[in-house]
């Protein structure tokens, strides 16, 4: 089955925080057990061993559990940032990672507005770690993503983005007093493939809560970057032009000086003075002092 936009909808009201999705993900992707590494603030944070995790959010009278994993943005910042194209947005929707070409620059981690990509700092040859929406599994085996399959309460469901959006809207409309009337992921940074609906406001991470903008990330840099070839050419033309003009002016001045100096003697158009100045200008030191003196005279 081919998808146009594989997506996941998580209904926070249904999640009981059982961590089955985390375990299923671990098994599916062969992730190691959780270990208390230095760089983890909390062992249950997203990490090399957890491409998805369940975050406990204070929800007043009872706490809520919010799944956190790669959002598979419609216009992903990480894909735009990646220096070698190790991160790719597939036509079916998931953002996948090619560990064979990743150089480990970690710009994806800087660029991601949701602080999702993790790095396996513990490895001698470290790689970026993040959810791939079980791309191969869904595409080749026709199964559901492991986390969705494992969910005992159907809090997290899988499907086409449009269908999930309409399902989310249906739920919001069916129980308007229960849900916050917002679909997280619908429009943030141009929309994401991972959607959340909830009965409390979701403040998942410090950075994520700051994401209010609906402008896609990639255009922020490419807007400037696509001018660069033009800037290169313009700069070359301007610098070349200045060089040519000044060079020519000096050459003419040198000729004039040579003529005045020779005063009807051996006429040598384009004589030594100009060349020496040009040489000196090119080489920098070479015969520096002489050159500058001569041009000063001229």
């Amino acid at each position, binding site marked *: 089955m081919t998808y146009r936009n594989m997506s996941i909808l998580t209904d926070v009201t249904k999640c009981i*925080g059982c961590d089955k999705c985390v375990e299923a993900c671990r098994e599916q992707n062969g992730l190691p057990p959780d270990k208390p590494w230095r760089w983890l603030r*909390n062992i249950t944070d997203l990490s090399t061993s957890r491409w998805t995790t369940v975050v406990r959010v204070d929800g007043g009278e009872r706490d809520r559990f919010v799944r956190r994993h790669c959002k598979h943005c419609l216009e992903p910042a990480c894909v735009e940032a990646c220096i*070698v194209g190790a991160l790719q947005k597939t036509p079916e929707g998931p953002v996948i990672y090619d560990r064979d070409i990743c150089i480990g*620059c970690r710009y994806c981690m*800087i660029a991601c507005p949701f602080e999702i990509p993790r790095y*396996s700092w513990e490895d001698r040859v470290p790689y970026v770690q993040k959810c791939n929406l079980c791309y191969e599994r869904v595409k080749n085996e026709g199964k559901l993503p492991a986390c969705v399959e494992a969910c005992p309460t159907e809090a997290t469901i899988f499907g086409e983005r449009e269908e999930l959006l309409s399902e989310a809207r249906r739920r919001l409309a069916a129980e308007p007093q229960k849900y916050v009337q917002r679909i997280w992921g619908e429009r943030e940074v141009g929309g994401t493939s991972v959607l959340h609906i909830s009965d409390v406001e979701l403040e998942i991470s410090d950075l994520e809560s700051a994401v209010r903008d609906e402008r896609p*990330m990639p255009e*922020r840099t490419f807007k400037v970057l696509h001018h660069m070839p033009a800037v290169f050419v313009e700069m070359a033309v301007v610098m070349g032009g200045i060089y040519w003009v000044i060079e020519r002016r000096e050459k003419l001045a040198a000729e004039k000086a040579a003529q005045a100096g020779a005063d009807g003697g051996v006429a040598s158009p384009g004589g030594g003075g100009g060349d020496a100045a040009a040489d000196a*200008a090119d080489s920098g030191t070479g015969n520096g002092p002489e050159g500058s003196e001569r041009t000063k005279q001229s």
Partner: protein
Amino acid sequence: MSIRAVKTILWFLFGAGLTVIVLRIIHGPGSVVALTDLMPWGLWKGGGVVALVPIGGAGFTLAAFVSVFHWKRYRPLYLGAVLLGLMCYSSVGAGLTFDIGIWWRIVFPIWNWQFHSTLFEISWCIMLYLCVLTVEFSHAVLEKLQFHRVARLLERFGIVFVIAGICLSTLHQSSLGTLFLATPFRLHPLWHTELLPFLFFITSIGLGCLTISWVAIVTHRLYRAEPPTNAISGLGRIAAYMLALYLAVRFGGILASGKGGLLIASSWDTANFWVEILLSAAIPVALLARERLRNSPAAMFWICSSGIVGVSLNRVNVAGLATVSATNYLYLPAWTEWIVTFGILSGAALVFLFCVEYLGVFEGIDSRRLDEVYTPRRLEHGDWRTIFFQNPQADARVYSVALVLAVGVALLLVPREAVFGLQPEPTPAHGPRIVEIGNSEVPGVSRVEFSIPPLEEAVDGDSARILALMIDGNRDGDYVIFDHETHVSKQGGGDDSCVLCHHMQKPYEEVSECSDCHSDMYLAVDIFDHDSHVEHTNGNEGCIECHTDPAAEKVRETAKECRECHESMRPEGTLVEIPDEEQTTIAVGYMDAMHEACIGCHEEEMEARAEADGEPAEDLTLCTNCHRDLPGLEDEEWKARL
């Protein structure tokens, strides 16, 4: 300070840095950096790349002044600036190589093209510009080696390289700013502006003027020569104009975008902003406006220092320091990161000084000056210092000692991860606790029921309150009742049994986790014992007992179902549901078994209550219903752990 002392220090730093680099190659970057997932770029990126590239901007700035604009006043500093650029960009290359996770893939951008990536553009520009700088500087080397014909050939096309270098620099100096346009939510609004590329570009010109002046002043001072004051003073004036322009654009941008209020907010970021502005531009511009100060090398030294520190602070802020308030994560570079940065810079400085001494980079520093500074001090005859220092190889000897000493000191001081590889943090488990539990025998079923906390009154049958030990054996915050005596006796008792869990003073000792032995506690387990079945069915002749179809492959799927012989797979009194309608020899794991033992009743109870009340009952199936009520553990602690 004498040139020998400076070089000795440089060799020492270089040796220490090199040692850490070797350890980083062996154990990966995680072993020597203090970076985390929330702060993935640190000193090596922010300082070693983003801040060092504009320092190397001296190369293209002076190339433009001298070769394109024909401002001959600056010619004395031209070659020095190119060499400074070359050293800075080489350091950037070296630093970046060891910063990225997989260092040998530093060359991958050459063939893996990604035109939308700012970093891709920067890496190509830097690679090409490094080539340009090499060509620009090679002239001096070729002349020294007497390859005059090649030198002249390069000279003829010199201007092409110069202009290419200027264009490449324009691109990557500004693109370093473009990099951080991608972090609008991370970077503090005082720094994040659409103007970043432009600001980065103009500061790189101003900073280029200041760095080559600083380097020239310091180098000339080291060799006790007079720095070319005329050129330095002129550069100071240009730097003042560029930095004043920068100030105007920066403040104009902040005010125009309505962020003026942040300038007077009382926050850490605002203080940081003003320190940066004062050091990078305000103080240098104010002082450089005075001609008297511009003409004084001592004053210029301090002004340039302020500018270099300030603009570097600007780059470091954009690359990380000004993101702290958004990510709420403070990163302080490990000393190993500092020493690698200083080590690489020291290596570059040594090459720089070598070139200054042998290639005539600065006219003022000639062989006469060198003889002067390198003249051995007058030493007493027969003194050990004389023997050590008057040898023709004395300098090399001192530097070698510094290098070896540095390696030793670095090895002594590096954290244990850098030498032995990374280990998880040692035992964050909370200590064991004693709890009182009630246990009651349920009549009719051979089962003991524990209740935590103990029931107030015994319900049925005998009930007793006993003390039990609870440990966080897997360090996951889930305490379990632990029967220490049984563990001792099952392992044969005696001293030998202790070490199976408590390792008794081994290096990096950690107590074994429960799951080290109970490897199946989180997994479903196969309870089918094939060998035992073979034995009970008289060896090979018994195969057909289960594998009834001789033609079929002898695998589990084609064999007889278990329940055909074992009528009840479900032991008497068990609470755990085993689906007996399908062929299975897989038993649920410990954790699932425990959960299912409890949660079934909870669900039943919930349904019963809902039926009785006629409306949905309180959700009794939440994990926290059981887990947070463990005695002796505060609710807050549970929340923190979950």
